[in-house]
């Protein structure tokens, strides 16, 4: 996306939102498997995921956005030092719920900022009334 109308901020916010959504997905799976023997808790490193999203998905000038490469594999991380319970499960429910809440709050904040920017854009198009 280029030009004055759709500034890179919108694009960046959208990508960050997508990663937060994927992270929510992964954390939800951890909570779902809180009682599954030998399940290892996983997470998404937000910073490196965002970097990858920008490195591989930026469309070069003159290229149409439809030619974008498929989204890169999500870098999932496992904490090798996480204490395992007797059944080999490493999910810490309090930790996971805290991460889920923090990630959700970040998502809501970004969604709100994105919404404000869209509102700004609309006001610029329509003019103030």
């Amino acid at each position: 996306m280029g030009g004055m109308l759709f500034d890179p901020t919108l694009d960046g916010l959208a990508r960050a939102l997508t990663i937060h959504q994927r992270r929510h997905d992964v954390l939800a799976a951890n909570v779902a498997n809180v009682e599954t023997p030998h399940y290892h808790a996983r997470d998404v490193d937000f910073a490196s995921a965002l970097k990858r999203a920008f490195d591989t998905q930026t469309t070069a000038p003159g290229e149409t956005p439809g030619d974008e490469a498929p989204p890169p594999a999500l870098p999932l991380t496992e904490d090798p030092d996480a204490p395992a319970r007797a059944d080999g499960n490493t999910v810490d429910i309090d930790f996971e719920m805290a991460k889920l809440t923090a990630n959700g709050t970040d998502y809501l904040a970004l969604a709100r900022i994105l919404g404000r920017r869209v509102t700004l854009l609309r006001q610029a198009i329509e003019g103030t009334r």
Partner: protein
Amino acid sequence: MEINSTLAVSASALRAERMRLDTIASNLANANTTRTPEGGPYKRREVVFEAEKFDSPFADTLATLGDEARPEGVAVTDVIEDPTPPRMVYEPGHPDANAEGYVAYPNVNSMLEVVDLMAATRAYEANVQVIAATKRLAEAALSIGA
């Protein structure tokens, strides 16, 4: 966005935990059952949980993200019988007493079952919270620019 698959993962956990609750209820209800169709006293049952790669309507898209990135739900793959021996209680007057006067009661420990019941309830509640959080995120996404 994979709101649906996130909800499906949480829903699979709710289903699994509910099945665990069913099993615990059955164990507690039959804590003193000395006769079963298979013969002998009731045997304590236990569910086996297994992580399960999830197929969603977005499975094709997800496949491009690599198999590892797919969220894993929970499935109850088996309900096993606890192999521990029955509790022998001396009750010579009981119709199911053996030659020595001992009755084989189920290997159900009520205290253990109630602890398990609480753990299952908390796990269920945690997943309900996740569903609520997922819903909030979806609502925020839908109201962008509204």
